[in-house]
């Protein structure tokens, strides 16, 4: 990751900017929304337990400390995926999130909540995400 950032530094013009978006170290949260209420049902784990996100933070800190970039601005936002059912989100994760661990208990619990007579309901995956702007020095 540090090598990638060093290459980015070489590719940028002097005073160019790097925008980085990557998930936070915290595991994404599953929620079921029933009507107006949202119920937490579990967390999404990955096979490497999110080690790569921590390494990403360390790599950025490394190039900042070495004076390749300065931090101009940092923030967070929630990236939310919406599905009509627990099964739909489960299949999406199998197809698209290769290192996700499919916790069947979590999905079974979520599926039970879909038995509510409330018609307005959905399954949500909330990913807390970092965004930052760095200036090339």
């Amino acid at each position: 990751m540090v090598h990638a950032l060093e290459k980015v530094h070489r590719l940028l013009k002097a005073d160019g900017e790097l925008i980085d978006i990557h998930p936070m170290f915290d595991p994404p949260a599953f929620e079921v929304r029933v009507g107006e209420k949202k119920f937490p049902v579990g967390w999404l784990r990955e096979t490497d337990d999110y080690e790569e996100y921590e390494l990403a933070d360390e790599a950025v800190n490394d190039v900042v400390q070495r004076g390749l970039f300065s931090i101009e601005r940092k923030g967070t936002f929630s990236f939310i995926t919406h599905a009509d059912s627990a099964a739909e989100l489960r299949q999406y994760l199998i197809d698209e999130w290769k290192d996700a661990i499919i916790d069947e208990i979590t999905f079974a619990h979520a599926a039970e909540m879909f038995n509510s007579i409330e018609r307005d309901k959905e399954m949500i995956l909330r990913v807390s995400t970092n965004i930052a702007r760095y200036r090339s020095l």
Partner: protein
Amino acid sequence: MPIQLDPEDSETTALLDYADFTDKYVLEIGCGDGRLTWRYADRAARVIAIDPDADRIATAIKDTPATLKDRVEFQVNSIEEFSLAKGLGTNGNSQLQPSQGLFDVVFMSWSLC
């Protein structure tokens, strides 16, 4: 209703709040199928968007709006392998020349992990 990714547009809102792409030369790393590229490319001078996933790049190329075809270039590539000399001009209309320190903005889209 199919899976919806960020229908709140939180990601795009944050991105456009943090970066001014107007008339900029942009390298997007980890562009996938171009989901985010379309959100800013119309204001950039030139975009090179790379991703190692050939299927997603094929989708991005297929879905490129006609109005952006002369401005956006997708490549199956990683940042480690990316080479300006190798990569530019593959679509025959690139105005960029191989050199270092070319880009105004590099955007790492969920790729630094």
